[in-house]
């Protein structure tokens, strides 16, 4: 299979992290991927102020900001009043001590959650996945955000639907179909 090629030139990201060094680290990774320098913020209030008048193409934020949780900020962003910007993909970064906030971020409407330390491979593959896999966006009263069910799309490589799937070698239907399609295209159906 050919390598993923991604054109991120001109993509405007909003990066929210309370730690200056982490912000610098993620920014330089994004620039390494060919993305423009991200808009930087430290707090949820910074993000709200910016997003009230500006659009972004990708939001990368910590699970806990100094003034609010990432989940609260995502809920604010996903409101119908936010018009088209509510659909913006959101990547939530969790540090070790923030691991308990994973389900809150998911239920808030995050597209994907990435554990720190963020590796360039991990971040690039997640951004590729978000850009390439179209997930429906659900408005269901108490939840607004990407469809959390993986029925017709797979989670990114290395992530499994259930915790023990990887150990059991469990394959998902879309992965099996993709592998077959790949084999057929190479002229060697299995």
């Amino acid at each position: 299979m050919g390598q993923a090629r991604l054109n991120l030139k001109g993509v405007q990201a909003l990066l929210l992290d309370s730690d200056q060094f982490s912000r610098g680290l993620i920014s330089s990774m994004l620039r390494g991927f060919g993305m423009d320098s991200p808009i930087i913020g430290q707090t949820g209030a910074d993000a709200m102020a910016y997003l009230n008048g500006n659009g972004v193409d990708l939001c990368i934020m910590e699970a806990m900001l100094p003034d609010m949780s990432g989940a609260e900020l995502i809920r604010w962003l996903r409101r119908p009043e936010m018009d088209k910007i509510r659909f913006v993909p959101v990547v939530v970064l969790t540090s070790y001590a923030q691991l308990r906030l994973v389900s809150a971020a998911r239920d808030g409407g995050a597209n994907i959650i990435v554990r720190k330390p963020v590796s360039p491979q991990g971040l690039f593959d997640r951004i590729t996945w978000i850009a390439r896999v179209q997930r429906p966006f659900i408005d269901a009263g108490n939840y607004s955000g990407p469809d959390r069910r993986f029925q017709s799309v797979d989670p990114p490589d290395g992530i499994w639907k259930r915790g023990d799937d990887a150990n059991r070698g469990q394959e998902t239907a879309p992965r099996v179909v993709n592998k077959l399609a790949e084999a057929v295209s190479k002229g060697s159906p299995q």
Partner: protein
Amino acid sequence: MKTVMTHFPETRLAKLAARPGGLMRDIAIENAMKSIESMRGEGDEAIKREMDEIDKIMAGMQKNRLPADQLKMVLHRADLIVTLAATFGYEPLARCMRSLCDVADGLLHNGLDDGAPVAVHVRSMRLLAPGSAVLSPPQVEVVLGELAKILTHYDFSPISKQADQIPIAK
């Protein structure tokens, strides 16, 4: 009955990323790796800064007690060091700081203010810091093994065990 609406938005990210051109995965990752590596010196400085902050908190400890606000500060600083140390490949230090996070978190959740288990971690932190005397792998395991006993003694569960069991990216 609640109405559930399903949208199929095409994001600007998807549109832009699908344009021709751009970088191959390996090149994009290599670029990013180089950027990170160029920040190693700053990273070491940041680790040292956070360690100094923890030392300051410990220096102000009275009667071997750490009140909740100070424990929270230790937890915050240790958490930052975990990320920094793991980013730059200081795995023993990252493990030591994860253990400190577990202990500080356990103390906070149980309303305890014992300073001793934190102090032991801070001494180990200095042993495993970048630039300090290099310990052999068996020596590192002895240090980390002793720290693990503290968690067992208090019957604290590591944060990673309490976290949601949904798959997340590494």
